[in-house]
């Protein structure tokens, strides 16, 4: 086991080294390079049974990043988690949003560039536009999530006198559908915009590289038979049959 581990680490190191050589350019010809990559891949494949034992590449099994960067009130995080799980529920295919760590992914994203719209044009004025003109709210994404979660809580209290995360799945779906169809009145933004943001964020968390805190154990990828980060498919691209390949995340570069 230890031996196998070492071997695959070496392989990856060699991959990085080879890739640097490509970057260097002049030192190495393309033909030779192709051969190296091919060898590399073969070696990687030989050592892959090791990975099949369920080694957690994501590093977030007991991960140090499973805490909150954005939400301050844990109840809001629980509401978000419950809503995310309804959008992407656990089923026979595998884990749902909660099992994949999606709520942590969303929390972390809300704390950074995504939540603060740092690379987006946020200067006014903000008159109402047509649907084809896109997002025109002065609200940043983290504020839209705050408002959306506030309304999720408010509606479930009003309709059921319960917390959103205590409702049955059907009850939760009914409320989420109201958001989806734009029937909930929200401050500064329409509820469909919030719902679409939430839906996209859930799918992003389910399927982004595990380095972002979701897609735990690459289970999102495994459900879809998506192999994640692979150096090369040169030797498989012409295959007639469907290839099931053990996925690999970007952590492969840092072992």
């Amino acid at each position, binding site marked *: 086991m230890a031996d196998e581990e070492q071997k695959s680490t070496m392989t990856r190191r060699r991959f*990085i080294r080879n*890739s*640097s050589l*490509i*970057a260097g*350019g002049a030192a190495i*010809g*393309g*033909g030779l*390079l*192709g051969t190296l*990559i091919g060898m590399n891949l073969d070696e990687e494949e030989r050592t892959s049974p090791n990975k099949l034992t369920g080694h957690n590449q994501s590093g977030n099994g007991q991960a140090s990043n499973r805490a909150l960067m954005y939400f301050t009130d844990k109840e809001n995080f629980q509401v978000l988690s419950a809503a995310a799980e*309804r959008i*992407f*529920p656990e*089923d026979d*295919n595998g884990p749902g949003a909660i099992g994949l760590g999606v709520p942590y992914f969303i929390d972390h994203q809300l704390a950074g560039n995504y939540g603060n*719209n740092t*690379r*987006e*044009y946020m*200067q006014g004025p903000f*008159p109402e*536009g*047509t*649907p*084809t*003109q*896109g*997002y*025109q709210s002065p609200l940043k994404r983290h504020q839209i999530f705050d408002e959306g979660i506030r309304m999720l809580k408010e509606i479930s209290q009003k309709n059921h006198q319960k917390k959103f995360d205590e409702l049955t799945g059907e009850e939760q*779906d009914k409320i*989420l559908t109201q958001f989806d169809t734009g029937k909930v009145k929200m401050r500064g933004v329409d509820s469909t915009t919030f719902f679409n943001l939430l*839906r996209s964020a*859930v*799918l*992003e968390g*389910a*399927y*982004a*590289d595990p380095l*972002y805190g979701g897609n735990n154990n690459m289970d999102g990828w495994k*459900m*879809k*038979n*998506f*192999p994640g*980060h*692979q*150096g*090369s*498919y*040169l030797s*498989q*691209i*012409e*295959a*007639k049959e*469907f*290839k099931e390949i053990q996925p690999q995340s970007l952590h492969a570069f840092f072992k």
Partner: protein
Amino acid sequence: MAKKLPKVDVVTIGVGWTGGIIAAELAKKGLKVVGLERGKDRSTKDFLMVHDEYRYAIRYELMQDTSRETVTFRNEAKERALPMRQLGSFLLGEGLGGSGVHWNGHNFRFLPYDFEIKTMTEKKYGKNKLGADYLIQDWGITYDELEPYFDTFEKMAGISGEDNPLGGKRSNPYPTPPMKETVITKRFKDAAKKMGLHPYHLPSANLSKSYKNPDGEQLNACQYCGFCERFGCEYGAKTSPNVTVIPTAQKTGNFELRTHSNVTRILHDGKKATGVLYVDVLTGEEFEQPADMVAVTSYVMNNNKLLLTSKLGKPYDPKSGTGIIGKNYCYQILPGAAGFFEKERFNTFMGAGALGATVDDYNGDNFDHSDLDFIHGGSLSITQTGIRPIQNNPVPPDTPRWGKDFKDKSIHYFNRVLNIGAQGASMPHRQNYLDLDPTYKDAYGEPLLRLTYDFTEQDKNLYKFIADKSAEIMKEMGADTVVTNKAAEKYNIVPYQTTHNTGGVIMGADPNTSAVNNYMQMWDAENVFVIGASAFPHNGGYNPTGTLGALAYRAAEGMAKYSKQGGSLV
């Protein structure tokens, strides 16, 4: 007060495909070239972490920072334009190499019909085929005249391909053989052949084998890793300016690259440009760079914007139909069909940006339009670009957008769906144009460019016809369910469609109807060359890079000539 720098022979505004080609060609000839690039430097070694769909494809790592610069948009002139606050319909690039870094590498030549579209359409279908609101015009150059420049661009880029049975004549074969045949490309070709169509392998800038270009730049062989569009290539196997023309320019010793340098003005005396004004983005310092020739080589949007803010050329006025700059803005029409296969799974996660097969039977005037209510058409391709899980959640129609059923079906069909898509030609219309926004400003206090655009009847008719053809091929390929895409009623700037924006600084033979001649030289300022897809009088039925690359080599030849003799080149 701007600091005035020593004069150089040539300054390029932007260093992507067109700026890089100009820099390489003129620096090789001994001219002193300065390249001003607003973004950062980057090369192959910066793409090692690129297999990250979220960072690159969803959060747009390589794209323009719209907090600093964007466009405003409205469907029609009576509406108020509002900012495109986040990228959507098209993905503007930023940084060294520009969009040439994150393209997929589809490298076509526009058809002979494209360059003489007005003459040929009128000859065959009469003067009123489309009506007076459609501003189609000849390009002022023919395919045969442009052929040597296509050839030069393809050799520089090492394009992998095979003859297109319905394309223009080639003086030379592609420099490298076509990419590999896969189950998917073969399936498409077999179906197309059975239907009497003429399939061929898509010409690709993801190289089928390693290749040294005539400038001595080494390109590597594609690994089919499935991360091309929106990503840079960590192998140096997708041709980009960064692995070809930029290093070529740098090796001459005559090219100075200045990154983080955002040009805000082309300076001129009313007849000729004297240089440019730019801001060091990191320090805020302002510089004047005098030059004998100015090459306007940013993307379509900023080429138009800079001419308008610098008051070079006559702005287009849609009411009177006079003026040029901003006129003939075109996009691309994207009909297609999806096929759902119940019993088969495909290796769709493998691939390369330009791995695919194409038919041109419904492109240009390769089919008779006498009984049709549109002109032109589009190339129809199946591509195996490598699908990724965040962006690809294919479900049959009437499936909910979320919840148990959505999850189950989007997982089930992830590897069971194939798509045929067209690059449909886009014809200019008098109501589709670019000008300056009266309200919104960029990070330097300059007005944002304003886009007024909607789909036309021509677009919708073309869409329907081509979508039906896509569905026919998909049926022949054996899909259990074929979903024919439907044309949108209105152009919507939110969902991604394509980064094939064209026009606004169009080329032609007549100074009254064009901004630049067929060397990309401005009629109104003989030492200003505006190079890129901004010069296209309409957008053809292909991805634009191959054609704009050819025009850039043509412009480089013109600029070299101009440096010796001056004056108008035509």
